[in-house]
C-alpha cells in the first residue's frame, strides 16, 4: 500500500502537470484561430457527449502546420536557430576545452577552488549574466570604450543587436555546461598513456590528438548536447542581445503568443520545435547510457 502511494503521487503530479499539458498543446496546434477567449476553436465540450466529441475531432486539421511551411518566417527561424545553436556550440567547445584541460592538469589542491569558480556563475541568475553583456557590448559600452582607448579601432563597433552578440551570450552563459563534463572525462585520464605515446615517438601534439582527444570524446559529446539543446530554444539571449534581424524560434514562439495572441500557431511552432529536438535528445540519452554502462 505504501509502495502504491510512493509511486502514485509523483506519477499523478507529472502526468497532470507535464504530460496532459503536452496533449493540450498538440490539440490547440490542430485547432483554428478565433477571436474569442480563449482564442481558439473548436473547444472540447466534455458534457456534450459522443456527438460533441465527434464534431471536435472532425474540426481538427493540420492547417497551422501547413501555414508554418508557407510563411518564410518560420522555416527561416528554424534554420537560423539551428545555425546559431550549432555555431555557438562549436565556439563554446573551443573556449571550454582548454579551460577543462588546464583544470585537469592543475595541482590537486587547486581543483576544489577551480571547480567552485566554474560552478559559481551557474548559480548566479541567468538573466543577470545576460544583462551584464548589454552594458559591455552597447555602442558606448565598456568594450568599445576600451578598444577606442587602446587605439585598436577608431570607430565604435556595432555588436549589440546582432547575431555576434547572441553568440557571445550563449558561449558565456553555457560555458560551465561544456567545461564540467569534459573536465570529468579528462580527470580520469591516465597520464601514463601519454607518456607511453611519447615514448613510442609521438610529439606532444600527436599524443594529445591521438590519445587525449579520443579519451575525452564522451565528455565532448555530453557537453556539446548540454549546450546545443537549450541553445536551440533559447529566448532570453536573442531577446536581450539580438536585434530585430536575429531569428530564433524561441523568440518567434514568444511573440506569436504574447504579441499576436495566435495560440494555435504558437502551439504548432512548439510541436515542430519539439520534433526537431527529439533527435539530439535521443542521441544524448544514448551517449549517457553508453557511458554509464562503460563505468559499471
Amino acid at each position: 500500500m505504501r509502495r502504491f502511494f510512493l509511486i502514485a503521487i509523483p506519477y499523478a503530479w507529472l502526468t497532470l502537470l507535464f504530460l496532459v499539458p503536452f496533449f493540450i498543446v498538440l490539440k490547440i496546434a490542430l485547432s483554428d484561430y478565433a477571436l474569442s477567449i480563449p482564442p481558439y476553436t473548436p473547444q472540447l465540450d466534455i458534457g456534450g457527449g459522443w456527438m460533441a466529441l465527434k464534431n471536435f475531432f472532425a474540426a481538427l486539421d493540420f492547417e497551422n502546420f501547413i501555414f508554418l511551411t508557407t510563411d518564410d518566417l518560420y522555416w527561416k527561424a528554424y534554420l537560423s536557430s539551428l545555425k546559431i545553436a550549432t555555431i555557438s556550440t562549436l565556439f563554446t567547445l573551443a573556449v571550454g576545452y582548454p579551460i577543462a584541460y588546464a583544470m585537469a592538469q592543475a595541482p590537486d589542491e587547486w581543483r576544489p577552488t577551480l571547480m567552485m569558480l566554474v560552478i559559481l556563475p551557474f548559480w548566479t541568475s541567468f538573466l543577470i549574466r545576460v544583462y551584464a553583456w548589454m552594458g559591455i557590448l552597447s555602442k558606448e559600452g565598456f568594450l568599445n570604450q576600451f578598444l577606442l582607448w587602446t587605439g585598436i579601432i577608431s570607430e565604435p563597433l556595432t555588436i549589440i543587436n546582432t547575431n555576434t552578440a547572441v553568440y557571445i551570450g550563449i558561449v558565456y552563459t553555457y560555458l560551465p555546461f561544456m567545461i564540467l563534463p569534459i573536465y570529468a572525462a579528462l580527470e580520469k585520464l591516465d597520464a601514463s598513456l601519454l607518456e607511453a605515446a611519447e615514448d613510442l615517438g609521438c610529439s606532444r601534439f600527436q599524443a594529445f590528438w591521438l590519445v587525449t582527444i579520443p579519451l575525452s570524446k564522451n565528455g565532448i559529446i555530453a557537453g556539446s548536447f548540454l549546450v546545443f539543446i537549450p541553445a536551440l530554444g533559447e529566448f532570453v539571449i536573442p531577446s536581450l542581445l539580438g536585434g530585430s534581424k536575429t531569428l530564433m524560434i524561441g523568440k518567434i514562439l514568444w511573440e506569436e503568443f504574447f504579441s499576436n495572441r495566435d495560440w494555435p500557431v504558437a502551439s504548432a511552432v512548439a510541436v515542430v520545435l519539439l520534433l526537431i529536438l527529439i533527435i539530439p535528445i535521443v542521441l544524448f540519452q544514448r551517449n549517457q547510457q553508453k557511458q554509464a554502462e562503460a563505468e559499471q
Partner: protein
Amino acid sequence: MRRFSWFNATSLTLGFAFLYVPMIILIIYSFNASKLVTVWAGFSTKWYGELMQNEAFLDAAWVTIKVAVVSSSIATVLGTMAAIVLVRAGRFHGRTLFSGMIYAPLVMPEVITGLSLLLLFIGIGMDRGIVTITLAHATFSMCYVSVVVSSRLISFDRSLEEAALDLGCSQFEAFRLVTLPIIAPAVISGWLLAFTLSLDDLVIASFTSGPSATTLPIKIYSAVRLGVSPEINALSTIMIAIVTVGVITASLVSKRNAVNRQREEQAAARMT
C-alpha cells in the same frame, strides 16, 4: 604529475577572466554616481537607496521568495519520492513513461514548458497568479531534485537499512533513521538547486503568471528591455553577493563535514 605549462596557465587566466570580468564590471557600475551607465562620475551608493524605495521591486522580490520557498519544498518532497521510485521500486507498470517524464523536463525548452502549462491552467479555468507559478516551478524542479537524489541513492549501501530492519525498526523508521540522514546532503542540495531555479526563472513564470503576481525576473526583464539602468546593476550586485556568500558557505560546511567524518572514522578505527 606533468609540469603545469604556460599554455594551461594562460587558458585558465583567460577563461576565468571571461567568466568573471563581465560581472565585475556590472558590480563596479552599480556604484556609479551617474545615471548614464557608460560614464563614470564618481562613487555613490545612491542606486541602492533608490532600490530600497522602489515598492514594485520589493513586492516582486517578496513574491519571488514566497514562490521559491514553497515550490522548492514541494519539489524536494516529490523529487525525493520519485528518486526512491526510480532507484528502488523495481519494475512496475508504466515505469518507462515515469522515467521519461522525469528526464524530459530537464531538456525541454522553457518556452514549450511554459506554453503547455499556461494552456493547461486556462483549460481548467484556474486564475493565473502566485499559485500557478508555484505549481509550474515545483513541476520542473522536482525533476532536477530527483536526478540529484537518485545519484546519491544508487551509491547507498542497502545493508545498513537491512541491519536496521533486523534490529527491529519498522520500514518507515529505517527510512527516517538510517536512509534519510545518509541521503540528506543530496536532498539539501536538491532543495537549493530547486530554490535557485525558481528564483532565476523568467520564461516559465512569464507564461504562468497573471496580472496579480509579478516575480523579480519578470520585473527585471521588462526594465532591461528598455536598456541598461544603474538600479538594475545595484539589484544584480545584491543578488550576486547573496549567491556568492551562499555557495562559499555551503562548500566550507561540506568540507568541514568531510574532515569531521574522516576524523570520526579514524577514531573509530583506533578503538577497534
